[in-house]
């Protein structure tokens, strides 16, 4: 089996390239391999869609968690400020 034929049927390799593509650039050869694979494999096309979805969700999750403020309780904050003040007085 030639190397291009191999990728055509190798979903593990294809999913690896799908992941790499989203975070870095693929080589020309890798781009070609992935395109050939995806043209014939609907399962990996589903995987790619879902992979992109997951990345987007994770990103949104983090952005949202910065809008949503968690708060420390007041007692802990007071202790914290006391420690800082103690430290300042030492100097």
């Amino acid at each position: 089996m030639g190397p291009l034929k191999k990728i055509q049927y190798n979903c593990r390799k294809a999913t690896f390239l799908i992941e790499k593509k989203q975070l870095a650039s693929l080589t020309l050869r890798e781009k070609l391999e992935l395109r050939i694979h995806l043209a014939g494999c609907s399962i990996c096309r589903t995987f790619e869609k879902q992979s992109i979805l997951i990345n987007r969700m994770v990103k949104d999750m983090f952005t949202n968690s910065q809008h949503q403020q968690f708060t420390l309780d007041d007692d802990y904050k007071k202790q914290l400020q006391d420690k800082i003040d103690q430290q300042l007085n030492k100097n």
Partner: protein
Amino acid sequence: MQAENKDFNITTDLPINPHQWVSRYADYLYTYALSRLTDEELARDLVQETFLAALERADQFKGSSTEKTWLTAILKYKIVDVYRKKSSQFLHSTDSVSAEKQQEDFFDPDDGHWNVPHRPQAFGIEDQDPFTQSEFTHILQLCMKKLPALWLSVFTMKHMDEEDTDAICTALKVTPSNFWVIIHRTKVNLRACLQKNWS
């Protein structure tokens, strides 16, 4: 006049104001740590450590960034430290190994084909705004918590902080090729977990 003013202390000497730190930044830093570590006690401890470390290094604050940015950078460094410790602690032990084992069934070992029971099936929400599906986000969070420590560290640093790949490799002591293996495995695993728990 200025030469006589010898009794200035740390707070007037430097462009920082530690007396205000807790009221200004504690909640922000806590939120920052919590979103990356999902461990309330640890997040709390790191906020404290950050303030104390900042006091010790107060003379290094040059005023080229804001106080908030400076404190966040110190906290971030501490979080990476936690990642590193957790990852090396588990590097050779059960969690990565069992997660890898779990994946052996996903693909045919010879030709790399999806094995039939593990083939990705549509979730049905691929084309919608994921945030209309808060249940789905919740499952995603649970699935992330099940990841091996090293995988989660790599994944979080890359996606949350958009760190440079080389920087992640250095911080967590993984090779670049292993980095991509981990990124791939993490996603395959997360996707499978979502499919299993979303119905």
